[in-house]
């Protein structure tokens, strides 16, 4: 009679190996300068990878699951959500199927990545699954998912699978933890990168310092970009922004939130204190130039 424990372990083991084998054809390894990472085919001819693991300059080559190497170019990258989109010339690879399902905490997670074209895997549990959050750089990420797995640098950009083999997002290295960039964020950001090549940020063209006002907080204009939207609106150095679209300013962070990708081109009304006198200005939000 066979030991039932052996059967359970063996079937568990082969189930995990099957998940990896099924996902592997859509996984690529990404080589840029000295950096090695993983990625997956998101749409025909398009690869999603981890922006943090992609070199800032130089050529990019990818290695497919069949072992062949291809050149790739950057379609766009967004460091606020750690998503980079690459183009390559093979359209015959079936893209990974992403699931919008949010994994439950404690459920199994398998990361499928690739090292030099060879599949690699990591196994662990979903250690946290929560609501949307904002990265330190201001990127909107639709769910907070953390994995209790050991992820090698080269596995950044790999797919995180749940126990039924559904891809729930991209595995990346956060500070001291492994994060999943969820499907909803990938589709939104990569979709925008595909069509626009970048994630725009709103731009006021001022240097601001938080100041206390008698009745709340304000943002004092310390410097003005001469060719920026604020200068065009007539805002001067020394002005204090006290209100935004009819509401009192809650803080500089609120201004940051108001300058997302969709803000570019919109008109806002600013309440300004100049020498203590209230003034109103209409300002058309510009697009932040890359410096």
């Amino acid at each position: 009679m066979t030991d039932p424990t052996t059967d359970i372990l063996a079937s568990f083991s082969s189930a995990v190996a099957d998940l990896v084998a099924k996902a592997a054809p859509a996984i690529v390894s990404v080589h840029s300068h000295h950096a090695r990472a993983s990625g997956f085919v998101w749409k025909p001819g398009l690869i999603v990878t981890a922006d943090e693991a992609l070199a800032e300059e130089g050529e990019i080559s990818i290695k497919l699951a069949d072992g062949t190497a291809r050149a790739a170019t950057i379609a766009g990258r967004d460091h606020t959500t750690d998503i980079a989109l690459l183009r390559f010339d093979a359209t015959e690879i079936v893209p990974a199927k992403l699931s919008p399902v949010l994994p439950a905490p404690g459920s199994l997670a398998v990361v499928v990545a690739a090292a030099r074209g060879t599949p690699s895997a990591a196994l662990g549990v979903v250690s946290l699954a929560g609501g949307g959050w904002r990265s330190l750089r201001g990127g909107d990420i639709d769910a907070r998912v953390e994995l209790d797995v050991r992820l090698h640098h080269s596995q950044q950009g790999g797919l995180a699978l749940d126990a039924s083999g559904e891809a729930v997002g991209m595995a990346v290295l956060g500070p001291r933890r492994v994060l999943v960039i969820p499907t909803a964020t990938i589709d939104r950001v990569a979709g925008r990168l595909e069509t626009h090549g970048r994630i725009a940020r709103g731009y006021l063209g001022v240097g601001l310092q938080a100041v206390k006002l008698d009745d709340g907080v304000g943002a004092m204009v310390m410097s003005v970009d001469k060719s920026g939207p604020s200068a065009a609106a007539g805002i001067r150095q020394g002005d204090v922004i006290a209100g935004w679209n009819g509401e009192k300013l809650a803080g500089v962070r609120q201004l940051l939130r108001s300058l997302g990708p969709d803000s570019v081109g919109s008109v806002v009304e600013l309440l300004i204190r100049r020498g203590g006198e209230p003034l109103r200005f209409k300002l058309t939000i510009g697009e932040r130039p890359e410096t």
Partner: protein
Amino acid sequence: MSKETSPAIVIAVEIGDAGLADRLASLLDGVAGLRLAAPGEAATVTIVARESHRPAEPHGFDLTPRELDVLALLAEGASNKTIASRLGISVHTAKFHVGSLLDKLDATGRTDAVAHAARRGVIHL
């Protein structure tokens, strides 16, 4: 007056870097002829860091001047490449500072780091 009866030199250590201050204090402790000043005691000699003294953060949030620069740029949404070019350092070094900053923020559970950066200095928006 003999050496034995000379009063000990009282040394105060006023260094913002808690680790460095601790190491200095333990090295000076036990050296004949000098002793560390008690809290509030007037010292004969004060050791200060070569860089200007920066009082410890009131919220137990101790960042180096470089990390504060990086934090302000992160708040503006800067990439590692932008941080590197704005601070005149390599991308590799920029990544290092970002990493240690994220580590510190994470360890102290600070989620309002951007607000913190905004209070400390000028943010370009």
